[in-house]
């Protein structure tokens, strides 16, 4: 990935608003996504989906399907080499959410579970064959109900003081339950795998947010050595977390390709994306908040539940932000799981914090109403001096600045708190606000920087660009470190043959790779200077490395530009193709930073809705968002992340909901017409501001991530605005027309 040549050099690299260097490839349709991969002799696989949500497969009749034109085979439990499970490891090593390999047993645990797979010369032939496979079931009773009651262990996640006693004696109380529905990620790019075997080795072209982890899992489940699996994911049409971990279709593609000794492409259908590649689970959260009449919190209790699948324990940690966001002496957070016959849930943009902050910030708004206090003032009065759960200082926290700045930009001072009191152009206005937070830190990362003879440089890291601008930011960091224009940096990502990079999850990629790339660039320069000192009869023969310096593509005696020699000359005379060095950075998780500091990003949303009661029409008309994510390396994609998250938040607040049909157990609205996301016409004016306070605990540049935080809190700001406009407090998302009639 190289920037377009002849691009005017920006005034500065880091911090400059640079367009994505992969933009031209994408808008011209030449960026090759996974489902664009086409290999000689490639076959197409289409899975057969279970049409019950619970029970057993008693028989599969594929005879008619096998006779259909172009069909190579139909595989199922009875005729495919079985897959293995992968060992459970710590943290995010060897990670996946749905641990059962396909066809492991004859039990169906959710609607749409793969029970067979048809393979044919064309996609259409494979689809027709999959449709012709007859599967017989012994159905059993299933459960997909969205009302949750704990059916297992509920455990305490955070506790201080005596929350129940403090709540009992609190002068002002809020006690409400909030519900968020199952949500499906719905990136426009469908999940896909193209599997190609060469003897005992396999290359998997994947839609993966974590190629190294994908390899680590797949080699175990396929039963081949790790070095025999290569995973490639050059471009992603987003993932929102749904593409972090391997799913069953990847194994099916690899498995049938191995059986047939031909490359196989499997593109997951939109319908199957509601069934087999994860979703944000239903959450149900009871909040009990006690406060003094002047708005000081005295107790905060959150009891959350989320649904998970029959076979896997996926936790949507709704208490992610609760323990540290506000100052409160008595606090308790409990969490538990409820089993349903649904596919295994998975992380979706801002897992835990997003539903958690919808509930907590809504509850705080209800408290502000009960106190007759401005919700901005309520948050100001409960600003903590430290992370009260960990008893650690914040690495950098500017929540109050976000709120103050946002309030000013929004014109919050003009707010009339009365329900329905604000009018404009025949419409009723509603205003709401909410805080947000999301974790910060680093994953372990490696990167290679190579300085080439032509004076350009190459950066290589096995992380991924999921559409957020990782190619660009790596080029910027390398350009800055090497004093080169960004157009001279070539970035290679998304391949397990590269040094292992971080997963594209947790909004941590930028923060994680900065130290590794910077370190690698330093190492590459060091290698270049070493090469310069050893040149035969060279200008720098008498030098020891420390007398020399590297400046913008040239080597010179320190401070003496008249001695400058180009990289091309140095490497040419040394007869070296390039010099390179590997850079590494360690994770913060469990590390020194984690022991000394509480690491998070913060922000504030202010939302305006318009309400037209005569036709029950509610629209979001304006959003102001202010984010504290440390130093912003490239405001263009950073702003784009927050704007996109706000639009997604409008969908979360007003539209998105995966509905399970209670008779069949199927996610019945499994398409983009019936599962509604916000359209362009739903996107209002969005003003995004970054308070740029570098957080040098996280890395030397002070940059945290911005991928997820924008979705946290926005639904609460909108729901509070809805209350302000209509007097209806919606505690179960999405806010629907029928709630407001």
């Amino acid at each position, binding site marked *: 990935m190289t920037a377009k040549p002849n691009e005017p050099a920006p005034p500065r690299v880091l911090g400059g608003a640079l367009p994505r260097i992969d933009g031209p490839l994408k808008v011209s349709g030449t960026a090759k996504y996974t489902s664009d991969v086409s290999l000689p002799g490639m076959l197409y696989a289409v899975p057969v*989906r279970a*049409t019950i949500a619970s029970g057993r497969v008693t028989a599969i009749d594929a005879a008619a399907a096998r006779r259909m*034109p172009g069909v190579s085979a139909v595989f199922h439990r009875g005729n495919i080499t079985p897959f293995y499970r992968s060992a459970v490891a710590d943290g995010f090593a060897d990670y996946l959410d749905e641990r059962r390999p396909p066809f492991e047993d004859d039990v169906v645990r959710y609607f749409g579970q793969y029970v067979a797979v048809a393979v044919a010369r064309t996609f*259409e032939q494979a*689809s*027709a064959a999959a*449709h012709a496979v007859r599967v017989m079931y012994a159905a059993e009773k299933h459960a997909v109900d969205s009302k949750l009651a704990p059916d297992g262990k509920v455990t305490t996640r955070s506790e201080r003081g005596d929350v129940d006693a403090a709540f009992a004696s609190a002068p002002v109380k809020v006690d409400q339950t909030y519900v968020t529905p199952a949500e499906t990620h719905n990136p426009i790019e469908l999940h896909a795998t193209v599997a190609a075997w060469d003897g005992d080795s396999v290359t998997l072209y994947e839609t993966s947010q974590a190629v190294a982890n994908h390899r680590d899992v797949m080699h175990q489940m396929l039963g081949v050595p790790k070095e025999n699996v290569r995973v490639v994911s050059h471009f992603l049409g987003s993932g929102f977390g749904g593409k972090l971990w391997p799913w069953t279709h990847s194994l099916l593609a690899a498995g049938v390709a191995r059986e047939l000794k031909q490359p196989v492409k499997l593109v997951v259908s939109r319908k199957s994306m509601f069934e087999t590649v994860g979703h944000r689970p239903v959450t149900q959260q009871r909040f009990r908040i006690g406060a003094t009449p002047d708005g000081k919190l005295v107790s905060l209790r959150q009891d959350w539940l989320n649904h998970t699948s029959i076979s896997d324990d996926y936790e949507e940690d709704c208490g992610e932000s609760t323990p540290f966001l506000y100052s409160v002496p008595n606090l308790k957070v409990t969490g538990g799981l409820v089993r349903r016959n649904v596919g295994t849930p998975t992380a979706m943009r801002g897992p835990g914090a997003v539903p958690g902050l919808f509930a907590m910030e809504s509850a705080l708004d209800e408290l502000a109403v009960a106190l007759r206090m401005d919700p901005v003032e309520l948050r100001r009065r409960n600003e903590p001096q430290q992370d009260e759960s960990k008893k650690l200082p914040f690495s950098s926290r500017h929540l109050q600045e976000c709120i103050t700045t946002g309030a000013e930009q929004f014109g919050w001072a003009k707010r009339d708190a009365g329900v329905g009191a604000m009018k404009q152009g025949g419409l009723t206005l509603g205003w709401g606000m909410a805080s947000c937070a999301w974790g910060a830190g680093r994953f372990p990362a490696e990167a290679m920087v190579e300085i080439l003879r032509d004076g350009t440089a190459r950066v290589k890291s096995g992380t991924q660009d999921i559409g957020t601008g990782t190619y660009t930011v790596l080029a910027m960091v390398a350009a800055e470190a090497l004093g080169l224009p960004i157009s001279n940096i070539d970035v290679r990502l998304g391949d397990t043959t590269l040094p292992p990079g971080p997963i594209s999850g947790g909004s941590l990629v930028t923060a994680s790779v900065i130290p590794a790339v910077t370190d690698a660039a330093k190492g590459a320069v060091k290698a270049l200077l070493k090469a310069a000192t050893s040149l035969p009869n060279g200008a720098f023969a008498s030098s020891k490395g420390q007398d020399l310096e590297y400046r913008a593509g040239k080597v010179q005696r320190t401070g003496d530009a008249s001695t400058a020699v180009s990289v091309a000359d140095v490497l040419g005379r040394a007869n070296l193709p390039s010099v390179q060095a590997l850079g590494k950075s360690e994770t913060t998780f469990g590390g020194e930073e984690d022991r000394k500091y509480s690491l998070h990003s913060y922000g504030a949303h202010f939302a305006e809705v318009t309400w037209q009661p*005569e*036709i*029950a*029409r509610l*629209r979001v008309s304006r959003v102001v968002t202010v984010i504290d994510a440390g130093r912003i390396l490239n405001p263009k994609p950073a702003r784009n992340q927050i704007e996109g998250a706000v639009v997604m938040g409008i969908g979360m607040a*007003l*539209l998105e909901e995966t*509905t399970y*049909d*209670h*008779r*069949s157990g*199927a996610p*019945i*609205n499994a*398409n983009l*017409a*019936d599962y*509604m996301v*916000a*359209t*362009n*016409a*739903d996107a209002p004016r969005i003003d995004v501001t970054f308070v740029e306070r570098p957080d040098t605990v996280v890395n030397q540049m002070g940059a945290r991530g911005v991928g997820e935080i924008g979705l946290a809190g926005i639904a609460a700001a909108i729901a509070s605005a809805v209350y302000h406009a209509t007097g209806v407090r919606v505690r179960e998302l999405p806010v*629907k*027309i*029928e709630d407001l*009639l």
Partner: protein
Amino acid sequence: MERFRYTKATSIAQALEIGRHAKTAQQGADVRYIAGGTTLLDLMKLDVERPVRLVDINRLGLDKVEKSADGGLRIGALVRNSDLAHDATVARDYRVLSEALLSGASGQLRNMATTGGNLLQRTRCMYFRDVAMPCNKREPGSGCSAIDGENRALAILGISSKCIATNPSDMNVALAALEATVQVRSVSGERAIPFHEFHLLPGDTPHRETVLEPGDLVTHVTLPPPPAGATSTYLKLRDRASYEFALASAAVVVSATGGRFDHVRIAMGGVGTKPWRMTDAERALTDASVSEDTIRGVAAAALADAKPQSRNAFKVELGRRCLAQALRLATGLAHA
């Protein structure tokens, strides 16, 4: 998707000759005419429609909007929705039709979808579109999944114990209010079908959606001359701001003389199993004074015979508000 034969017809006679082999009427038939394909291809990919033969009718020259002898309009069945919406005469004299068309689907779909195809647009009931689910419309006798299922978007008028699917078309609602006529040809000749007779109620045969016979080809839709002094509008209510079928919509064509309603035609969408003419409301408004009180009274009485399902009772109130606001907009008592 199943394998099928595909023929590009170059004349109406050729299309009809192939079409006559159809065992059933157009929707769900084994031999299907295809124009824009925005419904049919979609349903074929879902295995909901499984024709063995497609007759491409795009080259039959039925793509003109012409003035008819009586001062009305003759719209070719192949006129694209975008072209029809932006036709100067339609935009001026049949505004309700233009607005209805532009409220539907997306720009790309409207550029492909045709007038005849839109007439025959099939329901968006989620169970109809999923072959794993029982559906009397798709497989007669298999049962209706929607009655006790996810029926928020489905009908409250004209339903039966066999089917509660909504007709999803916005254009049809406008055509109902405009009292259009559907012109049909078959090997046995031509006939003209008044719009209100064109679509069928589900009754015991929800798989039969129109009065078309096997092999019938829709050639034109004709509109009567615009009533003198009439104004018209289409109001569509839905969850999001675009790209969604109506939860309730209203097409209104009205004229007033001396402060009293004169010509009144109203149809509603999103609430009925077919485009729903509101004849009671039309009668109540005719000769009544053009006022907020009149409109409120008529709206409050409307949809009294609705039969809401488990999740769509809100459509009664939403439909009333939609009707009232459409009347206000058409009469200038409110502005968009």
